[in-house]
């Protein structure tokens, strides 16, 4: 059976991501799950926006697109509409997909475009140095919230599940088997499916918020999140799992 390495451009390793960054974990798991699902350069394409996560598309061994900031979804929707034979996977950051691309998230999900979205949620703008994002948790120190963020984080689950048909999964880079299951189910879902993955950013978020190491950040997810294997209604704040309605 095909595995992660079959879908990764080995000649481009190492990636540009910092040591200990969660994006690498997600990339590797996504490549593995896609390979296991039989996806390859003839039947799939990966589309990214801009940001640290935005660089993910370029590491896949298949046709891939690195679009402009926030615009991965409409590009992906267009490809999916014209080419139902292709599995279209979007991999992008939280700022990209929920802030500058937030309007597209509302509408691509509402139209139930046949796109699988892997949202790397590090709760910060990584690429530009660590400014606050719509996902930033209250109290977090970022470059633009020097005394701690006060704003409400965006409710991604709420946006996705406001659509009659929906697939929303939440996982973390600590819960790898769970993450794989979420990715596999999302890929198999006919229509718009989004996996919201809590991912550590040790260099930007971690350093500003006095986290000593990437390991400490990843292990914190173990404390903060519990798997809910069969959510009734929506996931509570500290829960990870899959919420779907066909």
């Amino acid at each position: 059976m095909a595995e992660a390495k079959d879908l990764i451009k080995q000649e481009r390793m190492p990636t540009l991501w910092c040591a200990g960054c969660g994006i690498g974990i997600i990339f590797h798991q996504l490549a593995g799950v896609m390979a296991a699902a039989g996806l390859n350069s003839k039947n799939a394409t990966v589309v990214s926006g801009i940001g640290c996560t935005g660089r993910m598309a370029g590491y896949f061994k298949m046709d891939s697109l690195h679009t402009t900031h926030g615009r991965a979804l409409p590009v992906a929707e267009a490809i999916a509409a014209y080419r139902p034979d292709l599995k279209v996977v979007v991999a992008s950051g939280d700022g990209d997909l929920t802030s500058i691309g937030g309007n597209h998230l509302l509408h691509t999900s509402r139209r139930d475009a046949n796109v699988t979205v892997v949202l790397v949620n590090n709760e910060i703008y990584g690429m530009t140095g660590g400014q606050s994002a719509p996902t930033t948790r209250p109290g977090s120190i970022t470059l633009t919230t020097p005394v701690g963020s006060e704003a409400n984080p965006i409710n991604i689950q709420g946006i996705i599940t406001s659509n009659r048909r929906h697939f929303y999964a939440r996982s973390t880079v600590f819960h790898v088997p769970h993450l794989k299951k979420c990715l596999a189910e999302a890929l198999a879902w006919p229509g718009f499916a989004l996996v919201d993955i809590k991912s550590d950013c040790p260099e930007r978020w971690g350093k500003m918020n006095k986290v000593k190491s990437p390991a400490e950040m990843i292990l914190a997810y173990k404390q903060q999140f519990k798997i809910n294997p069969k959510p009734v209604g929506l996931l509570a704040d500290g829960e990870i799992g899959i919420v779907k309605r066909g």
Partner: protein
Amino acid sequence: MKRLISGNEATFLGARKAGASFYAGYPITPSNEIMEYAAKYAAGHKDFRFLQMEDEIASAVAIIGGSLAGAKSFTATSGPGFSLMQESVGLAYMMSVPTVFIDVQRVGPSTGMPTYPAQGDILQASHGSHGDYQALVLAPNSVEECYRYAVESFNLAEEAQSPVIFLTDGFVGHLEEVIDPDQIEVSAPAKRLREPLGTGCRHFTGLLADKNGIPRTADSKLYQDWYWSRKKQILTAAEKYKFFEYVPNKKSDTLLISFGISSRLCAELQKDCGYFRPIRLYPILENELKAAAKDYKKIVVVEANDGQYAGEIERVLKREVRRIALLGGEIKLTPILKRLESISVK
């Protein structure tokens, strides 16, 4: 069959004739009909995809996705929407994605006069996106030309592997003239040069990248090589698309230069002045303009904006160019005649 057709319908028919099979857009007057024809056509033809997007930013990137997916792709808008599309024009240029952006111009800035025609987007069409790039812009002046040059826009986009701006206006878009598209001879649809997605291991990026699609964002030499070769590619492709009309007037010392809807008025003055009408606005027809201009003492540019193209022509000819600005949607002969009198042409 001969029938009354609007400029917007003819533009859509031309797109179809060129083999376009993907449309994404967002409603805006005076371009709406193009979108409506696309929606209607898609409803009856499985091989044509239509997407109504949430805004013009989405529409512009969607046609980039559609084009890479394998479809000749286009969108239509007007000034406010065209402004929102500018970042994507640059992306299409950088990624070398053939796309056609139709701008049915109206009076701006901002929401301006939505139902009144203008030609105020000349510089937006040529320099609206950030950074340096060589724009491709065609401007028809009749219903027949909407059809004919829509075909050419798609062909040029394919040959140059680049976005083409098809610049009409609210007047030409809504003008109805009797034509028979089946009898109008147009160029054959251009072949697609690139295999669609799902056939390789290519990386399409807006970053500076090497031949393998690997980002090289700190390589000034690579940028310079890329920049000049891309520009050359565009200029070479555009060679075949030098569309213009020139009617000399040996008895006159004045050359009128005009395009699009304004040129319909200026055509009336051919007995008094020389008449030059660029259809390809960009790349500017430098040699053709210079050759025509040298026989006249006075050069007058008539356009529905405050001298946007006149400034370009002045730069090319390196001599004084007089301007007649048709502003506020008033596309009429009287103000032109008055101005010509004051510069003692008549």
